[in-house]
């Protein structure tokens, strides 16, 4: 028999330890009292700007950050107000958001999903950010969008062009203003038909990751609908810097159009290689060989220099647009930084204003209320004509620009000229379009 020697003190001590042990897990379940994550209680509200400051898209990231800072100034009533003056919704008064002064924190995504999520998490957990925005790559945007959904904050996507962001990976807490690969295809196809005819043979070089694939799929579908034939599609590694070995086979393939589904540094290198191989002077089947770059940006055009002359592509926005919204934005950006903004800067600036406006109209920072205010919201005066934030997939629908590398640029910023503004109706698609199928928005998550 074991001897049980139970003293009063011993019993008390054991009892206390046991109950403390039992109670311990419950402290983890107790959440803060507010109804949603990071409810701003003081006189300020914090936004999280999560952009690539290092890595291949650092240029875009730096420009995005400039745009965010400008947007914060305008929201707080500093500077000339920019697009607040042309925006069709007049809820914002330049006194912050719901009377709270806007502050921000920045982070570096390094264009890596992991680092981006770490940085976004620290903004949410440490700095109390109520909204995360940014991203210069679709992979990162999708990863951070998933995180925001779990954490219960709103994600306003920056530059992300993959169909998946608002397609199979769409989330109830995530919103995208930027256009996507499908829209590029729909906007480019008629222009290509007019320029090059309807019986071309296309050869695709595609960056081997999510964005590249969705773009290849979209462009292929759009051009094949014209009557074009796709000779071959070749995947190139994202890290590649020399594309000569991929360009050489194009010469003997019988193709007469080369489609470069590349972005950033990839596109600069592949286009340069293609021009060096004399593709542009070549004639196939009695016609000039042509090159198409479906997603264009001014920063890319700058990198590729004279090689972009006469090459067509699509873009979300360009600073030379002459509507009031674009002019106001270019003016205040130019005054502050001394050069015109890129399309990445534009979309980030607009996203920030749209978020602030939605909060103001909803009268609450609660992500569910904000999401409701953004869904099926129609606005104008932000540089792309009448725009709709579709509730079914949280994608913006607006005019898409088809641009061409300028033959005689007048300055280092004047590299692209707008060939055509494709109207919104032409790039619209059903929310359950096969290229976007497979996803589920789920329900909005306010966290806490």
């Amino acid at each position, binding site marked *: 028999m074991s001897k049980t020697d139970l003293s009063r003190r011993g019993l008390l001590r054991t009892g206390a330890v046991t109950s403390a042990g039992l109670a311990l897990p419950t402290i*983890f379940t*107790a*959440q803060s009292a507010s109804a949603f994550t990071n409810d701003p209680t003081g006189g300020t509200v914090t936004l999280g700007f999560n952009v690539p400051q290092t890595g291949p898209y650092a240029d875009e990231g730096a420009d995005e950050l400039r745009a965010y800072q400008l947007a914060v100034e305008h929201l707080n009533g500093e500077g000339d107000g920019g697009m607040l003056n042309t925006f069709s919704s007049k809820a914002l008064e330049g006194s912050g958001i719901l009377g709270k002064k806007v502050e921000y924190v920045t982070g570096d995504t390094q264009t890596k999903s992991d680092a981006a999520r770490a*940085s976004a998490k620290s903004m949410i957990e440490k700095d109390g950010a109520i909204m995360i925005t940014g991203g210069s790559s679709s992979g990162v945007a*999708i990863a951070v969008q998933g995180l925001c959904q*779990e954490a219960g904050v709103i994600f306003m996507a920056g530059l992300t062009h993959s169909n998946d962001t608002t397609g199979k990976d769409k989330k109830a807490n995530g919103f995208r203003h930027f256009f996507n690969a499908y829209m590029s295809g729909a906007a480019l196809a008629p222009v290509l038909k007019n320029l090059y005819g309807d019986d071309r043979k296309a050869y695709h070089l595609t960056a081997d990751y999510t964005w590249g694939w969705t773009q290849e799929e979209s462009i292929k579908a759009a051009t094949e609908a014209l009557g074009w034939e796709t000779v071959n599609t070749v995947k190139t590694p994202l890290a590649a810097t020399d594309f000569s070995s991929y360009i050489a086979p194009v010469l003997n393939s019988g193709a007469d159009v080369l489609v470069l589904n590349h972005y950033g540094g990839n596109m600069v290198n592949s286009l340069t290689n293609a021009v060096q191989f004399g593709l542009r002077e070549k004639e196939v089947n009695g016609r000039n060989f042509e090159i198409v770059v479906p997603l264009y940006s001014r920063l890319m055009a700058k990198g590729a220099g004279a090689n972009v002359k006469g090459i067509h592509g699509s873009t979300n926005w360009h600073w030379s647009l002459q509507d009031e919204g674009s002019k106001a934005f270019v003016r205040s950006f130019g005054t502050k930084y001394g050069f015109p903004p890129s399309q990445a800067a534009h979309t980030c600036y607009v996203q920030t204003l749209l978020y602030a406006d939605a909060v103001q109209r909803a009268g609450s920072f609660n992500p569910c209320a904000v999401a409701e205010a953004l869904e099926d919201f129609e606005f104008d005066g932000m540089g792309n004509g009448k725009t709709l934030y579709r509730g079914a997939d949280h994608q913006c629908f607006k005019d898409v620009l088809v641009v061409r590398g300028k033959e005689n640029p007048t300055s280092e910023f004047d590299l692209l000229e707008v060939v055509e503004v494709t109207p919104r109706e032409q790039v619209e698609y059903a929310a359950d379009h096969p290229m976007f199928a497979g*996803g589920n928005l*789920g329900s909005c998550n306010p966290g806490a």
Partner: protein
Amino acid sequence: MFGLDKRDTTLLLIVAGLTIFAPFILNPFPTDSGLAQFNAGYPDLMQRFVIFGIFAIGFNILFGLTGYLSFGHAAFLGVGSYSAVWMFKLLSMNVLPAIILSVIIAGLFALVIGYVSLRRSGIYFSILTLAFAQMSFSLAYSVLTPITNGETGLQLTLDDPRVLGQTATADGSIPVTNLFGLEMRGTYEMAMGPWAFQFNMGYYLCALVLIAAFYLSIRIFRSPFGMMLRAVKSNQQRMNYTGLNSKPYTLAAFVISGMYAGLAGGLMASMDPLAGAERMQWTASGEVVLMTILGGAGTLIGPVLGAGFIKYFENIFSKINSNVLHSWFSFLPDGLEDFIVFIIYPFIGKGWHLTLGILFMLVVIYLPGGLVEGGQRIGGWFKGRKKSDARQSETNPAE
């Protein structure tokens, strides 16, 4: 205690104390003070500290003891993450099966890679492991996209089967990772005057695993097996000439450290259910080498310190932007303020790599034994010269 001698017990208790009270230790500044920028006591970063601590402890078992420098350890971390996320997708959101599977898969993977790579030693071994890791990275990034979801990274979706759990919660969102119902993201906030401390469930799970992993590594260091590994480091040829086959020992060390990496990967996925291919890239493998060397290779606690040091820089310094700098120096006259910000700016924010690089160089040049040696030197100054000779113990490099 636990079969350890007094000194090792103390070390284990110190590590346990540090991890358990980390929410206090890492949040020394009041929340609304300007210095709150330097607080690191929020769940995500604390989890990273201990997870990378586990990773580095495992790496140190291979590198610190046998001297085999693997440049591909991130591959095991990545494999562990992918297995864990697949477990969340297919089985249930409980972290236990996920972590167990990630350790097993990483172990098997390490067995295969180790078997091939360990046929060579020195720089050839490093290159072989690097090649394997880069291969795994490329596979995960593009070729194996159906399994890894490529560049985007493997994520949970609302229509995963989760046969033992629920596919989606009642309100239509993805269920969260838990340990028998205890949510990993559950956080209790304690306000104490101007301070706010966060106690996170997931962090404490990681901390317990870290303590267990640390204990295991002490036992390995002190075992005859550990002695054999040290012998491999000092002169493998001589060992072979005496007729002893060292390969099983090095292979075992390689697999054990691979399993540690898998454990870290599984924990990482349990805290944040996403697995990205970048986890396997060579930079990630290089990072754990840096952590180990910075902290002190071959010492027990060094890798943990190194991991904490690097993660602190990555997450805290990278977030200081020019605005924050301006607010720090706003008391200075305008011109001087701008000048000082101009001088400091390249070293913070996106320049954190630069600062880390400089510190790494300084440590390697002046403190070859890493941060642990720095600690010993400081300790030596306080205690006087007498005791420092007597300390032939756990904190010395294994040579």
